[in-house]
């Protein structure tokens, strides 16, 4: 059997494409969690981004408005979460769950009129370079701008957290809110901003799904990716570079399932679909077994509310 080398390139490219929403949402959530806030509403913010992007694209016809509109929608919906957890000091877990349930409901409500409408073609960059280099060409070229942004994001996030002053402040707020507050840092303001940023990235991840990856609106189309994104943050032990690796593994599992069906491997399709979820559990077990390592890398105040009077 001769395997076309460009075919392998295309498979790798498709794995990368399916990793994009996971990278975006995980990197956003990572910043949120680094500031000490656990937002379980990623799935809800993502689906809101998906419908907002698709709806704005259909109504305005502008891809730029749609992409930024989806991010803004993510910001708006995460404002509810920020207000509740930061100003009204509610429980992070319960509030995040409410956000997800609410988001799925609202998105289906808005999306009612957009079911079955075909999407638009999203422009890709460097299309002409795709065939110039075998194997590498299809991997590197011919993707959307969001794709390139997603693969740059983990490195930018890493730089932000480690090398910039604001990144240091975010980490300080997450690791020791009391001392940060004593240093004059406005803890709740920092957390507000980190939550809104997480919302924007989840919104973008959703828009990527509904506008670029599978350009159409389907109810519940995020299909648990938001939850996998949350698991990826734990998987990465809050290190953005490792998110990249994790997202590629999960993207790979999704893509391999299609190809195994195509070459007629006799495994029930449901088992293959369940694989990413099962692997997530196994990976979480392996990572979490070393409780010392988890404790060292987890932001110490993660999920705990901060109030000046405390």
């Amino acid at each position, binding site marked *: 059997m001769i395997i076309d080398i460009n075919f392998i390139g295309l498979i790798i490219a498709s794995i990368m494409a399916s990793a994009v929403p996971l990278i975006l949402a995980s990197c956003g959530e990572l910043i949120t969690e680094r500031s000490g806030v656990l937002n379980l509403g990623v799935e809800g913010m993502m689906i809101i981004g998906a419908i907002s992007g698709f709806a704005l694209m259909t109504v305005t016809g502008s891809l730029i408005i749609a992409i930024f509109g989806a991010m803004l929608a993510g910001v708006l919906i995460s404002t509810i979460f920020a207000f509740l957890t930061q100003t009204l000091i509610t429980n992070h877990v319960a509030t995040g769950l409410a956000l997800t349930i609410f988001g799925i409901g609202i998105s289906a409500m808005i999306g009612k009129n957009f079911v079955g409408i075909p999407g638009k073609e999203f422009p890709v960059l460097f299309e002409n370079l795709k065939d110039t280099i075998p194997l590498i060409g299809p991997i590197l070229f011919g993707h959307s701008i969001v794709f390139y942004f997603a693969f740059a994001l983990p490195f930018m996030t890493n730089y932000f957290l480690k090398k910039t002053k604001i990144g240091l402040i975010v980490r300080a707020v997450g690791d020791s809110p009391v001392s940060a507050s004593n240093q004059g840092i406005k803890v709740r303001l920092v957390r507000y901003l980190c939550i809104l940023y997480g919302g924007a990235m989840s919104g973008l991840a959703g828009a990527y799904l509904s506008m670029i990856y599978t350009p159409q609106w389907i109810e519940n189309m995020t299909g648990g990716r938001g939850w996998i994104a949350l698991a990826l943050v734990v998987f990465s032990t809050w290190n953005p570079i490792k998110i990249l690796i994790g997202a590629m593994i999960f993207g790979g599992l999704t893509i391999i399932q299609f190809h195994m069906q195509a070459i007629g491997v006799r495994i029930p399709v449901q088992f293959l679909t369940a694989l990413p979820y099962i692997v997530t559990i196994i990976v979480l*077990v392996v990572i979490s077994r070393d409780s010392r390592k988890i404790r060292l890398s987890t932001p110490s105040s993660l999920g705990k509310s901060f109030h000046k009077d405390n």
Partner: protein
Amino acid sequence: MIKIVKRDQPSRAIFFFTPVLAIFLTLVAGGLIFFILGFKPFEALKFFFIVPIADKYGFSELLLKATPLCLIAIGLSFCFKSNNWNIGAEGQLTFGAIVSGGVALLFYEQEGFYILPIVILAGAIGGMLYASIPAILKTYFNTNEILVSLMLVYVSKLILDYLVVGPWSNPEGFNFPETRQFSDSAKLPLLFEGLRIHAGIFLALAAVVISWFVFYKTYLGFQMKVSGFSLKTAKYAGYKGKKMIILVFLISGACAGLAGVGEITGPIGQLHREISPDYGFTAIIVAFLGRLHPVGIIFASLVVAITYLGAETAQIFMQIPKYTGQVFQGMILFFLLASDYLLFFKIKFIGLKK
């Protein structure tokens, strides 16, 4: 001028008042959403919350939907009280339904009084088995139970899908994704002629009574309460933390499994793909709205069950999408959490003189 003052002690009166306030605020916000969508708010709310339960049939449907919600929420309250975040009740429900459905199929076209108890027990065991996975992983491998229990929801639905499409599908079923109908001996008896409400409601009521007894009259209930307040204190008092984690997960898994049994041996009568409209997730809201108190959970399950019925009625009569139900459910939880602020803080009006 308004001034916010911290209370010396959380107010007990407010503790039971805020769920009512949350429901009221949800209605106001819901009316506003209907208005924005171009419906008459009062008419829409009437179709949503009053029309569905205005007759005998509607009331039976309300109890039918409230039964699984109440049962699961009671189970979850064991977990939540002791600071264990089991959010995969939907998976435990599904797996319980799979196991009990499998047993019910073994008794295909057989009769006997012993069949139903075995089927019910199988469902509880199925739910417990499935809940034991996140519990064991949490206690022995330090794994986050939120993510594990949630991932298992997707897995359970895929197992169900595989079974009803493949090995368990009805041989005479024209390839529909469903199993054979269970025999009458494997079905929960109906309580009234012509209504769908079935004997499963007694399971829910039994769970309410038992949980009340455990919470307020046993040492275990006390231990759970202490662990919920502070894990450190629980450790200091020498409670066996690991045992308790596994126990509360098993209890809540059993309840979710029983809710699954109630659905498939009650109104459905077979296994197919959609055995639960996310009861397992909605029950989380019910547990909180009921303040993790058995009696509160009864009321909360009735209130939240209306959102299911209302969504269906509103869809038929006003073409309002049925997902409005979820919007309402999310809002109830938002408002409930938000109004908890009043538990710890007082709002004082100072210098308001005309």
